């Protein structure tokens, strides 16, 4: 089965994200994106709009000294939705994060992300890492 065009587009976005060039991420995000960060930690909450989301990305990079990396185990996508099974690793002082995130995206008609939400296989570990 051929790959939907949104799959390589998302793969490209993840490469940009890992590079730390968050301004370049803007090309992949809808202006009115809503980014839900679940859990119970200081980064939890809803981020509205591309500037707020890019600010969140910068905070994450700063707090992890640029160590946070994402690696997709699988990317599924069609015109409207995408889901990613994402191995996420990071270090923060003496803390280490190593979880599998299930991530959902809704996509606009240009393939840009306009809503994001996710859940880890170990939310307690995520909470402890960011708290």
């Amino acid at each position, binding site marked *: 089965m051929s790959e939907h065009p949104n799959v390589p587009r998302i793969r490209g976005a993840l490469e940009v994200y890992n590079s730390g060039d968050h301004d370049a991420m803007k090309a992949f995000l809808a202006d009115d994106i809503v980014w839900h960060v679940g859990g119970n930690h200081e980064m939890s909450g809803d981020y509205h709009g591309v500037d707020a989301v890019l600010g969140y990305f910068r905070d994450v990079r700063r707090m992890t000294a640029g160590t946070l990396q994402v690696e997709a185990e699988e990317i*599924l996508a069609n015109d409207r939705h995408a889901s990613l099974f994402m191995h996420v690793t990071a270090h923060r002082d003496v803390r280490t994060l190593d979880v599998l995130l299930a991530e*959902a995206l809704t996509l606009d008609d240009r393939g840009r992300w306009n809503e994001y939400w996710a859940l880890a296989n170990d939310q307690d570990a995520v909470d402890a890492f960011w708290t």
Partner: protein
Amino acid sequence: MQEHPNAIRMRQTVDAFMSGDMPRLLQGFADDVVWYAPGDTPVSGTFHGHEGIIEFFSGLNESSGESMKVRVDDVLAGERYVTIFLDITAERHDGRLSVIVAQFASADGQGRWDRCWFLPDKLDEWNRFFAGASSGQR
């Protein structure tokens, strides 16, 4: 285009839940399935095995006053993973719920779900609706 077999299986899982057919629902899950559900509600936490699946889905039914309605909006499927997007609504005397749930699953070698993530987009609304009982890791 013909749907991927994992997409068809996931639709059958959701249909079994909606028809209240617990034996058919459980057929879709590996014996050692792990089910992750976020939030701070009676249906939040990590649920293990078929007993955990029964506990989660029974909890959904009971906590929603058996008012839950589920509509399949979209399904994405590959060889190992599948994600189904569900419009879920429910109504009790003290509140309403209207969320989109992304339900993710990985399939074992026999096509049974062995790891699942159940994730509402509006977690605050989900928590408010199901508030009122204890929660925690199981």
